[in-house]
């Protein structure tokens, strides 16, 4: 269990603005409005001030929304605040970018304050599908932005792709994958389209505008796994792939996203910004999903927390076990015990046996993890390991 006195080493910041809302997106974000963004930046600075005393970030992640939509000036304000509050110097610091909003001077600014990783939401390299998804950028912008980022000195870049998009054929997916390999990014994040309530895409599905082809989605996933492997990436989580300096991997590939690994391993993190969900010493919190309310709270000097939740120790351990199994390396038994206080083999014996019997998991002296086949059923594994 993390020590009460040690500061929290992970920070997430949510930037709730986008130039335009994508068809599939259920994240909290709104179309940008200059005045509101300024107000948000000041509230965020206020929020940083409130938690800085308990933070010594090893990983930082600016997600959204579209963090790259903030202007140079706004970024400067945030970064200087972080400097003042002693929040710089993270080992891994990621900022999410939309290919349409990357500029050379923004990239240089970020780099100069210590941002060392960029995650770019590409989603597809097919113009029609980009349209279909409501993305605001073109193929060309992706190539251009990637070059800008490299030129600014970013040597750790992630690209996001989606498959099983309505209208996406296997051929289109293969082409996209082939082109994705050609970028030579250090990290890939590839996942199946999810239909979330309250998104236009979901409404279209419900209205019968298209149907889900489960077989094709499976085939695309298989295609993904083989292609990225050939391209020199190592899967370390269901939807995440990264490069490694050598062929041998110890726990994770070198370029795995440390910030995200901390989530899956049940580590603490502060989360700032509207709708952001944090997890600090066993307590999950969620900020208001309304930028106006978020700002009002902070302008009064208060945290903008909408809800808090603290699970009983065994339930919390169950949750940690469940989400850790999404990673190829699963759970080092000692680490699990150290983090939760519970012994995985004692408290989840029937579940472990069931997964082993089906050939969906492997157990060694030190480690329990899902097999390649088992990873396909990680949701079911998670369900089994949750304690209710």
């Amino acid at each position, binding site marked *: 269990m993390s020590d009460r006195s040690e500061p929290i080493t992970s920070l997430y910041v*949510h930037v709730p603005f986008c130039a335009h809302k994508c068809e599939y997106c259920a994240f909290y974000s709104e179309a940008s409005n200059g005045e509101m963004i300024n107000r948000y930046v000041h509230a965020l600075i206020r929020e940083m001030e409130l938690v800085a005393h308990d933070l010594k970030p090893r990983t930082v992640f600016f997600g959204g929304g579209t963090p790259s939509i903030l202007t140079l000036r706004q970024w400067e304000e945030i970064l200087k605040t972080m400097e003042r509050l002693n929040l710089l110097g993270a080992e891994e610091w990621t900022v999410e970018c939309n290919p349409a909003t990357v500029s050379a001077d923004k990239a240089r600014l970020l780099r100069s304050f210590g941002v060392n990783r960029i995650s770019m939401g590409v989603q597809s390299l097919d113009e029609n599908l980009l349209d279909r998804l409501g993305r605001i950028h073109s193929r060309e912008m992706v190539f251009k932005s990637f070059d800008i980022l490299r030129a600014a000195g970013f040597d750790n870049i992630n690209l996001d792709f989606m498959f099983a998009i309505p209208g996406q054929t296997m051929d289109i997916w293969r082409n996209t994958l082939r082109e994705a390999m050609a970028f030579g990014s250090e990290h890939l994040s590839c996942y*199946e389209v999810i239909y979330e309530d309250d998104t236009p895409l979901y409404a279209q599905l419900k209205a019968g505008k298209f149907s889900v082809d489960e077989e094709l989605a499976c085939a695309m996933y298989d295609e993904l796994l083989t292609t990225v492997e050939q391209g020199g990436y190592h899967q370390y989580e*269901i939807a995440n792939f990264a490069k490694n300096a050598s062929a041998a991997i110890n726990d994770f590939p070198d370029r795995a996203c440390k910030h995200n690994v901390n989530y899956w391993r049940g580590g603490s993190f502060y989360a700032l910004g509207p709708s952001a969900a944090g997890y600090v010493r066993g307590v999950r919190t969620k900020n208001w999903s309304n930028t106006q309310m978020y700002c009002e709270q902070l302008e009064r000097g208060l945290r903008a927390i909408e809800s808090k939740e603290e699970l009983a120790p065994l339930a919390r351990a169950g949750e940690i076990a469940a*989400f850790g199994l999404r990673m190829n390396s699963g759970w080092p038994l000692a680490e699990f015990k150290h983090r939760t206080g519970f012994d995985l083999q004692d408290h989840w014996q029937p579940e472990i046996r069931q997964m082993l019997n089906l050939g969906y998991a492997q157990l060694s002296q030190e480690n329990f993890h899902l097999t390649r086949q088992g990873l396909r059923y990680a949701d079911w594994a998670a369900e089994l390991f949750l304690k*209710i």
Partner: protein
Amino acid sequence: MQASHIRNFSIIAHIDHGKTTLSDRLLHSTGTIATRDMEEQLLDSMDLERERGITIKAHPVTMLYKAKNGETYELNLIDTPGHVDFSYEVSRSLSACEGALLIIDAAQGVEAQTVANVHLAMKQNLLVIPVINKIDLPHADIAQAKMQLEDILAIPADLAILASAKQGIGIEDILEAIVERIPAPKPTGQPSLQALGFDSYFDTYKGVVTHVRVFNGELKAGMTVKLLHSGKSVEVKEVGSFNPKPYVRDKLEVGETGYMTANIKSPKDVKMGDTITDSRNPSAVLPGFKEIHPMVFSGIYPINTSDYEHLKANLGKLQLNDSAFVFQSESSVALGFGFRCGFLGLLHLEIVQERLRREYNMDIIATYPSVVYKIFMTDGTEKEVDNPAFMPEANYIERIEEPMVKAFVICPNEYIGDMMALISEKRGNVDHTETLDTRRVMLTSLIPLNEILIDFHDRIKSITRGFGSMDYEHADYREAQMVKLDMLVNGESVDAFSCIVHRDKAESRGRALAAKLKEVIPPQQYQVAIQGAIGGKFIARETVSALRKDVTAKCYGGDISRKRKLLEKQKEGKKRMKSFGSVNIPQEAFIEVLKTS
């Protein structure tokens, strides 16, 4: 009334030949009931009876009729249940009579139920008055009906009365024939009261009301009577008759029909066909009594497990008016707690289930019906088994016998071939065929009861495009190669689907069940094997292939809480499902399979 002026009779007929219409006519003609009080089909008081056109209870009605000879007679019409399931009740009601009106629809001629009913009446030595009804119909064929009377039923055709119950033709003749032809009741020469209890119903105020026919002596309020078969002595509270509403009388004398009430709380205390006599000076028992035994069993389970107590209470209420219906609690791994219920036959089973659903608003599921098998064990003992769960291991069984029925099937000539094929598919043997007329034949055959339980009647109707009819009477037990078929999901037996079947049919039934299960079991994260097995031998197999994946979506820090809640909800849902071989099967799946089997 003096015995010489009393006539007791029933009406027997194939369904829809006009029994109810004629009964109503008789009630009007005798002034028992005024036309304006008339409700369609007076005697069938349950909704279900009216809807299905079948009489379930035996209703006695007393009419006064002034005959042409100037004398007034007391005519007691005992309406008998119109279905073979209730053949014992029919035989008890018939034994309360000296005669019967046999109705034949002039346009249809003799049908299967006509034959079965006439057999029953003959066994009771009743005087049968043939009535050819519906002569008003344009395609009425009176000559044909007369020929069939003689050829098939051996009843002289010149005795037939031509009638139209609907138009009131021949009613007078029928009433006169009842007076003239049916013998008056005669005392039996016993020392005291001797009466037959032939049905009962439950009245909230009066308790059990028993329908009685007095054969000897008299029945009066205040007497202490003994029920010889149930061994109980009770004090009579009230006696009376029906017109058709109950009315109190001073006493019931030799030959009279009516009811009695006493301090009887449960209908189970009055046995159908019991002999009622003076407790201080008892007479002999009346002939023909049988303990009634259910012929068909099925498990009835509440769909919501929390409805168990409610279901139990409602089964109890139903039993108050249906002493032939029995139930006791049982439990199933798949279906939870429920009741093993015994019925006289398939119609009886359907009626009870339908009343539970409609009158009592119960959501229920019933297991595959089973007959009662006699199991002769290698150690010389004998067992009766109606539930596959209690079937002994095959190596302890020397032989098994199953109940048979003698079935009468009447069908148009052109369908004989298909009908023979159906009977042999149902493991029956045709004993003989008789030509009824130029168009139709009657096939008399011996068929296992278990084979006619499910779809025999429907199949006949569909083969003959509705022109065939079927009735049966119970016959003896016969040895049969019965086996227990188990259905297994990932190696674990699912009790709700086990059944006792003939060896030759086990395979096809196993395959059909496996295929159905495959349809309703949702794909899991691993392959699911569905097997049918007899003893240790597998005879059917289906596989539900595994889902190829259940997740390829991303999940980061902000998604964890929501995702956990979603998974918790799923897990909660599975907890409520039944698990076999670690496969979670939703209850709807069991219901789906039971519905279609």
